[in-house]
């Protein structure tokens, strides 16, 4: 009986909308003035939430700020969060002064006009290895400098290989690796574990095999690409690799290897510290290319970038901060803390001198390629999505490697 009159609802919602849009207006005007804090405080965002202010990285950031004569306010985000946070901040003209960013995202943010080029921010990239700088170069311009790289190699369990009669030094081609897996399997042990999950991680792990076959990202359906997918799907069919790889992240794949039941694992530099704690003898070898040699693995790791600011005068100080963070001495400390390979030859040599075990990783880093290189830029995410989709379709048996890749190529165009 006491019903609200019908007009009230539309009126109330109109009022609500009006309030909302005026709020939105306040919101954007307020934040554009609040950009980046005061002149003496610079902001830095990084994907290292695991490091607090007292960690070596945290102290390095503070020290570089002090040297540049400013105070740095540092915030660590989860890697997957950082892209959208940076995009939103840039939309509100509130981007940080210095942004440490996962390398395949650099092209996306550069495309969005969020990042300054090295012409504007004056960062010197001359000492960086060209293949490691590639992920930050789009259309002939450079958008940052790598702070360190990580890449993939094969970890192996020495005890299992010994009992199966496999000499790790012989694993130099796909045929040799598959033969080694057969021997391990015959000895009753598990073969190899990797990550073929339906995310960027899956593509990251597949690329060494894809590139190692000589395939190119511009043509997913080539015969060479098919041979790489076939290699993996045959391993699954023969039981050399567990079915769980289809859902494995790199972390879960590592956990499988850490049980000590697997002969090989494809994983990254960042697991070295965990490998030492695994409680069994392990070794590392570079991922072999199809017919021998080292396969190019994709480069992982972050770039230090300088986002666009309204007040372009801030770039001078930002440049000082970036130069300090990426100076030879600091790179060595940072990359040791992150368990990364340094992006410059001289620091790489120092790293190997201090820890000969890193030789394999430095070699892998020298052979590595940027995923967004070849001027793919923002075309890469689209291709990558089709690539991991095709790998999953082939591994689950839903499609043959050939059909899966043909479908992927036509969708990626």
């Amino acid at each position: 009986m006491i019903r609200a009159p019908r007009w009230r609802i539309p009126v109330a919602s109109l009022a609500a909308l009006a309030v909302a849009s005026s709020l939105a207006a306040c919101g954007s005007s307020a934040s554009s003035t609040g950009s980046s804090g005061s002149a003496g405080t610079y902001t830095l965002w990084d994907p290292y939430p695991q490091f607090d202010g007292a960690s070596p990285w945290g102290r390095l950031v503070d020290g570089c700020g002090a040297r540049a004569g400013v105070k740095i306010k540092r915030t660590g985000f989860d890697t997957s969060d950082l892209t959208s946070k940076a995009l939103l901040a840039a939309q509100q003209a509130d981007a940080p002064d210095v942004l440490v960013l996962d390398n395949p995202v650099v092209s996306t943010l550069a495309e969005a006009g969020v990042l300054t080029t090295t012409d504007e921010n004056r960062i010197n990239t001359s000492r960086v290895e060209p293949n490691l700088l590639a992920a930050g170069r789009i259309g002939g311009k450079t958008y940052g400098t790598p702070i360190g790289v990580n890449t993939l190699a094969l970890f192996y369990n020495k005890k299992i290989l010994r009992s199966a009669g496999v000499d790790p030094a012989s694993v130099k081609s796909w045929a040799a690796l598959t033969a080694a897996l057969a021997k391990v399997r015959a000895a009753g042990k598990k073969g190899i574990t990797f990550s073929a999950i339906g995310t960027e991680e899956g593509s990251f792990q597949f690329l060494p095999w894809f590139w190692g076959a000589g395939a190119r990202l511009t043509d997913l359906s080539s015969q060479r690409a098919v041979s790489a997918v076939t290699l993996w799907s045959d391993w699954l069919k023969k039981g050399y690799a567990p079915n769980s790889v289809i859902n494995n992240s790199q972390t879960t794949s590592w956990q499988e290897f850490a049980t000590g039941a697997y002969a090989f694992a494809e994983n990254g530099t960042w697991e070295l510290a965990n490998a030492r704690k695994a409680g069994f003898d392990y070794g590392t070898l570079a991922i072999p290319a199809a017919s021998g040699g080292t396969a190019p693995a994709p480069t992982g790791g972050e770039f230090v970038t300088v986002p666009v600011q309204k007040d372009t005068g801030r770039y001078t100080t930002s440049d000082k901060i970036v130069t300090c963070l990426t100076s030879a001495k600091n790179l060595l400390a940072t990359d040791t803390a992150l368990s990364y390979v340094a992006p410059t030859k001289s620091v790489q040599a120092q790293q190997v001198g201090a820890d000969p075990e890193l030789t394999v990783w430095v070699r892998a880093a020298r052979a590595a390629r940027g995923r967004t290189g070849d001027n793919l830029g923002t075309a890469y995410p689209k291709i990558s999505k089709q690539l991991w989709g095709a790998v999953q379709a082939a591994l689950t048996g839903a499609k043959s490697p050939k059909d899966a890749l043909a479908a992927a190529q036509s969708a990626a165009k």
Partner: protein
Amino acid sequence: MNTTARMPHADAAPSGHAPVAAPRPFTGGTGRPRRGPRSRQWTAWGFLLPVVAYLAAFYAYPLYRNADLSLRDYTVRSFVQGGAPFSGLANYRKVFADPTFVPALEHTVLFTAVSLFFQYAAGLALAVFFNHHFRLSTTLRALFLVPWLLPLIVSASTWSWMLNSDSGVVNAALGWWGAGPVDWLTSPSWSLVSVTLANVWIGVPFNLVLLYSGLQTIPGSLYEAAALDGTNAWQRFWRVTFPLLRPVSAITLLLGLVYTLKVFDIIWIMTKGGPSDSSTTFATWSYRLGFGDLLPQFGPGAAVGNLLVLIALVFGLLHIRAQRKQTDS
């Protein structure tokens, strides 16, 4: 409403109507009789304002932004720099034409319908079971709430460990029975089953609690009367319990529907919607489009999100209509 409508009419009356109009100028208030309802209305708006502002800021504005996102052609560049061109329903057309659309719709419908059915059936069975008080019934009932209290990340990760093809406890148990291992999370034909199973487990306590409280409101005298009429337990359930539980059931199912439609975390943690999109629902698809890839596609992502909102809205309206019919009759 009626009084205010009449007032201007009275004002417009020629001043020659002395007996009626005369006192007003002297009291200085044509406003006086008016002030009452109008100021009351202002006060009402004053009280309403906090709620309206809250609704506007946290409901209307996000919805408006989402609609706006879905109607424009956003690239990362125009997202940051502004000036995304209005593209009408292009994002929706793109989503409808996407090869993921039909499978995602099927998975959403299957996931929701199967989850709701089993959650409700199990919840009702347990509610009836616990309605007979016995020793430890309260403790047991409390234990059944555990899935609800656990953070989703914990329960979803636990499920994904249990269902692991090679080292999962479920396949180990199947092995003892002599059954072959099932690729719960890595086979396109099982992944949707697995995430639905986990979702049912998580949803049972919610149904149990609501239906149990519904059972408490059914007077015991009805059961006594039914017993005197010589009904058996089965008849008592179908003739007394079930019909009287209908309003509670309806709201339980509606809330369950809204929750289930937007279930995202369980699927994302367990399978990422894969392998090959075999467990992708609208919720995970929308997330993947907007945030899951290196290059975000905000427009299509928002369009898929809006489709979900629309579906939930349709069922909400159906529920309100059904309820109104019930109270009217």
